[in-house]
């Protein structure tokens, strides 16, 4: 595997004798393949003592994580390899001064190591001709979420988000509308549609409250609730906070509580300012990168999607139809007549077509017409559509109505007049 050679180049430059690769235990496949690569490299004499007769000794050990996100933070990572709880410590001293077992230690991401030989072999001039003014070279993104083509993409720095999502990713499935792209992992920010033409480089991302971070690009469509997304990230970071400093330990909990309250329709307008205040404080006063960046999803959604927060608080409405306390079901939420879709679909499922039609008629006297001409916004929101195809709600309705008209003995009782 090429990162082996690349770590070796670094080790040679700094005179290191041992390298560690820290892999999450959740990635068994990566561990298996790395072990294979390391074994092959040793067998070929590319690792070990006196590599290829050069007198240079270097070996790489693979270290399996044990399920703690904070161990990505460099000082926590060192603590973890040393056999301690993965808790960050203040810097300085930086790992390059005093790192693993007190030795100077270089810590980098695999992608960084992978770029070293490229810079050397292409030469700095050629390498820096790729990319934008301030961000050089290429960057690999993990393009995922509501996008047609998912996977790893490598692009020159400075291409637009639109290029990655629409030209490479093939746009949004089922012709839904793009809402945001979340970049940089759990500490990243959400970038809204109006910044689709933003070039992807370190400075531009920072200017809209996001980061390059892990290189994750999660595309979100109109059926994603941004308040719920912020809550989702906070529930993750609150759980992963190592707990040693109070802004992060307590602040994440408080933000999570407020966000949960808002998604339940119990929020208050002053919550928004409070949320922002706590977020800024946690960002400024936490010890490590986890605490310093975990408010980003909150701050960026507050900044770019404030209207969604307000809809939850003022109108007790979740515009995307996601928050369970506010929407009975996304389909009913989307139906202009507010028909109880889950009930009648369930009756149809049981073969009780007449009862299904009864349910529809509570809100709409024309099930047969609606079953033919309605543009069925309900199907666009169907949760089942997230995993494969939406339930064909309109056809079900039409079938139930037609069956009922054929079998009905007497016309239904008209509903009593409720308005004069």
């Amino acid at each position, binding site marked *: 595997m090429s990162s082996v050679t690349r770590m070796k180049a670094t080790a040679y430059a700094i005179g290191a004798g041992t390298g560690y690769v820290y892999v999450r235990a959740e*990635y068994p496949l990566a561990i298996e393949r790395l072990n294979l690569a390391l074994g092959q490299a040793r067998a070929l004499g590319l690792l070990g003592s006196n590599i290829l007769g050069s007198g240079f000794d270097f070996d790489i050990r693979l*270290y399996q994580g044990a399920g703690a996100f904070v161990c990505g933070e460099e000082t926590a990572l060192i603590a973890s390899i040393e*056999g301690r709880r993965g808790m960050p410590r203040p810097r300085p001293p930086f790992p390059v001064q005093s790192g693993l077992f007190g030795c100077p230690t270089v810590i980098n991401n695999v992608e960084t190591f992978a770029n070293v030989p490229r810079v050397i072999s292409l030469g700095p001039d050629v390498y820096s001709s790729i990319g934008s003014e301030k961000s050089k070279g290429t960057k690999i993104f993990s*393009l*995922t979420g509501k996008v047609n083509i998912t996977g790893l993409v490598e692009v020159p720095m400075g291409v637009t988000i639109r290029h990655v999502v629409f030209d490479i990713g093939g746009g949004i499935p089922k012709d839904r509308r793009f809402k945001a792209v979340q970049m940089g992992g759990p500490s990243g920010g959400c970038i809204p549609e109006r910044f689709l033409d933003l070039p992807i480089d370190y400075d531009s991302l920072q200017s809209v409250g996001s980061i390059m971070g892990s290189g*994750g690009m999660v*595309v979100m469509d109109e059926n994603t609730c941004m308040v719920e997304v912020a809550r989702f990230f906070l529930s993750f970071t609150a759980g992963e906070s190592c707990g040693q400093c109070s802004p992060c330990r307590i602040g994440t909990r408080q933000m999570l509580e407020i966000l949960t309250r808002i998604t339940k329709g119990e929020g208050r307008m002053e919550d928004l300012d409070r949320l922002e205040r706590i977020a800024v404080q946690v960002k400024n006063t936490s010890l490590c990168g986890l605490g310093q960046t975990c408010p980003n999803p909150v701050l960026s959604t507050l900044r770019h999607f404030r209207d969604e927060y307000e809809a939850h608080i003022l109108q007790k409405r979740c515009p995307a139809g996601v928050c369970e306390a506010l929407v009975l079901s996304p389909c009913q939420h989307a139906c202009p007549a507010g028909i109880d879709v889950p009930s009648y679909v369930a009756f149809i499922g049981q073969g009780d077509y007449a009862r299904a039609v009864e349910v529809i008629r509570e809100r709409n006297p024309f099930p047969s017409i609606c079953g033919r001409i309605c543009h069925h916004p309900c199907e666009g929101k169907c949760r089942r559509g*997230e*995993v494969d195809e939406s339930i064909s709600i309109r056809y079900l309705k039409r079938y139930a109505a037609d069956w009922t008209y054929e079998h009905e003995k007497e016309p239904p009782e008209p509903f009593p007049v409720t308005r004069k």
Partner: protein
Amino acid sequence: MAQEFDLDSLERIFKRFEPTRANLIPALQAVQEEFGYIPPAAIRPVARHIGVFPSEVSGIITFYAQFYTTPRGRNVVRVCRGTACHVRGGRTVLQTVMRHTGIKDGETSEDMQFTLETVACLGACALSPVMVINKTYYGKLNPGRIEALLKNLP
């Protein structure tokens, strides 16, 4: 469920790890690999072998999410709750698994058939929503497939 606890196998594991602090986590991982979990009775021997206090070993076990102190089911189902899977219906996957197995996140069914846990990203985001049963990955899941997969487990 009565647990057989075999000290000999513990000794065999210790032979592979020199008694240094840095070997504490790998040794615990090996114990877990052997027994499927870390039997509380193993904490003292591990501490003695590495040369730390038992409380430090407990400290490690409770800090890292991957260590378990209770026996686990024959089939460990891990549902991804990472971001990419979340926006593509990861919650529906979790609900389907919970409905089928009758257990919640972190629980083991009484018949020891299933242990259910959630993980923040399994590293196969492009295939979301994803779950792992024992060591096999399953991607692009839908409720029908999940039911079929769970039904056919040994």
